[in-house]
């Protein structure tokens, strides 16, 4: 087949001897080569005093390649660097910050006292149930003559408190259950997950409704607890799934192989890596909690004290006048939508930024 006789196999007469020779050579060459590598490493570290220079030294790299001098960038930081340029995230962040600021400084921002019925004189049950906009009252008043704008502004407080506390409660509950299930596994996992399954099988609003209804005296706290309880199984399930993925990941196996104790493996390696989706879920859950809170207040399961403004309750009260004075419903509804949207936009872009697949 060939007219160029080239040995297809290396001479197999004495492979062992050849092999021995080769190995010896390899070991001999090691000393020199590894010494060279060391120096190269020193040079790579920026030591100008190193005497070994590749030719020409400006273009060569050390064997392992170059490493930038800059300090390292953690994953959270690199996610933030990406987020900073993401217009969607910035919009969501702006909405959220404005909302939080308004909620915190509401009593000072609100032009009027939200409880006093300034315009009660103008209210005529038959002819003019809702006073319209007028100087000093840009959005007009409600059916009790109270300033609508001030009520909206102060109402953000309730929304924030309920939303944040409820989500926080759900988050903590979910964290505990999810960690128990995901990190311990076995029968603990089965038990927790069956419990979670039962909770998830009940529609969330119905569950919140029944929890709210069970309370002897509805208050802001029943609202918070009801919504938190609804959130717990969602967080628990998410975290457990995330932890399970971590448990079978290579780096957890590596930590185990290294002889790291169980506690640090769970809390240093598994949890921090499992938190990404949970944090994203938290921002999204905040939006849901705000809407749920509004819904429950709308039905009348919130704070029975009609004087404290709350967007959902305002929406509920507006239904009597929905045909003639729809603006009474529009304003709180727009507030709820915008704030929920703000959190959602933030959550979605956070999810994108933390997703390893979109990285780089």
């Amino acid at each position, binding site marked *: 087949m060939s*007219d160029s006789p080239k040995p297809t196999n290396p001479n197999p007469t004495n492979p062992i001897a050849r092999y021995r020779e*080769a190995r010896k*050579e390899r070991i001999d060459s090691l000393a020199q080569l590894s010494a060279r590598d060391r120096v190269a490493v020193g040079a790579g570290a920026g030591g100008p005093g190193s005497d070994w220079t590749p030719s020409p030294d*400006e*273009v060569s*790299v050390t*064997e392992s*390649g170059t490493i930038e001098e800059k300090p390292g960038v953690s994953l959270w930081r690199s996610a933030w660097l990406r987020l900073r340029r993401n217009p969607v995230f910035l919009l969501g962040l702006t909405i959220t910050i404005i909302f939080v600021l308004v909620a915190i400084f509401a009593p000072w921002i609100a032009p009027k006292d939200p409880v006093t019925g300034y315009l009660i004189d103008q209210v005529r049950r038959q002819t003019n149930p809702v006073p319209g906009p007028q100087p000093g009252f840009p959005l007009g008043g409600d059916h009790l003559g109270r300033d609508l704008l001030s009520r909206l502004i102060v109402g953000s407080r309730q929304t924030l408190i309920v939303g944040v506390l409820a989500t926080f409660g759900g988050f903590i509950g979910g964290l505990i259950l999810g960690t128990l299930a995901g990190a311990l596994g076995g029968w603990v996992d089965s038990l927790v997950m069956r419990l979670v399954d039962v909770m998830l099988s009940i529609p969330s609003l119905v569950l919140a409704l029944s929890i709210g209804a069970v309370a002897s005296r509805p208050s802001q706290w029943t609202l918070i607890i009801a919504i938190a309880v609804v959130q717990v199984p969602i967080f628990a399930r998410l975290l457990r799934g995330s932890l399970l993925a971590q448990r079978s990941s290579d780096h957890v196996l590596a930590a185990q192989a290294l002889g790291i104790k169980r506690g640090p493996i769970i809390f240093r390696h598994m949890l921090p890596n499992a938190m990404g989706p949970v944090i994203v879920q938290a921002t999204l859950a905040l939006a849901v909690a705000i809407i749920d809170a509004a819904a429950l207040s709308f039905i009348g399961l919130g704070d029975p004290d009609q004087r404290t403004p709350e967007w959902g309750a305002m929406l509920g009260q507006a239904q009597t006048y929905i045909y003639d004075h729809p603006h009474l419903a529009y304003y709180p509804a727009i507030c709820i939508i915008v704030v929920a949207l703000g959190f959602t936009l933030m959550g979605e872009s956070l999810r994108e930024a933390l997703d390893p697949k979109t990285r780089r």
Partner: protein
Amino acid sequence: MTTTTTERRAAVRETAPLLSVRDLTVTFQRHGEEPFRAVDGVSFDVRPGETVGLVGESGCGKSVTSLAIMRLLPKRGNKVTGTVNFEGTDLLSLSDAKMRDRRGRDIAMVFQDPLSSLNPVVPLGVQVAEVLERHRGMSRKAAMPVAAELLKRVGIPDPVRRLRDYPHQLSGGMRQRALIAIAVACAPRLLIADEPTTALDVTIQAQILALLKELVEDTGTALIMITHDLGVVAGLCDEVNVLYGGRIVERGDRHPLFRDPRHPYTNGLLASIPRLDAAGERLTPIPGSVADNLPWDHACAFAPRCSQPIEICTQVTPQLEVADGRALRCHNPVTSGWSGPSAGQTEGDVAR
């Protein structure tokens, strides 16, 4: 053998190319990021019946080249320039509908991951038959026996029964065979195989390579073989293009190229691979990684990793110089018996 091969290769080189890629450039433009030239002025020819290899490491642009030829890159975020001339038609300027007609009929592709390339919810037979229906206008009834024949052709045993099987019921090797069956269903004149054996075990790889070789010999299909494995190339390809950093750095017929690598990258790759037929001498690795590359604009990208850089390497972009069926892009080639590109002319359209 060498003489006959040389003669045969000389004859092949005379024939008009089936596919002629000129100055193909693919630029990735992602929102908020620097544009990145994944493929940078790549030019090569494929003649009928010829097997051409595109070899390089991850990130060298070999797969992007094949996707650009097939027009399979997403339009958004990618800019493709240059020409891809297939039998007198520029594929890059065809309408989407015209290109769809050609894909699978004139040019077919085999991918690395056979499972994700097959539709998991459609039986194998239907997937093969669909190609025949689409391009040959066959009815499903008429296509099925042909599909069975194709499965048999690529070495899938019990083909009639396999027609009803779903991809997950087949092993990796059998799936790759099925994918090849789909690719050759319409007897395409050009087959592009993108790392077809990388996901497979070595004994299965040997089966698939043997099958590809057989298909090329029997049907006269031209084959573009994209791989990172120099061993695969050594046994299969007539001509080999070595890519680095999005550009072709060396080209040659396989025998001269492997016997006499001229580019320090090709040479370094060959020196750094442990060989099954050689005892354990210390390997000579290429230092660094592709992250250390210089931009091609005013330097040789490989210079920082090169074993023999000279001053000009970091200052001037080397051009691809062509001579005697070989091409080389290097200021300071590895010295050996080759006469060098002294009489060669520069491929003008590659110059930048």
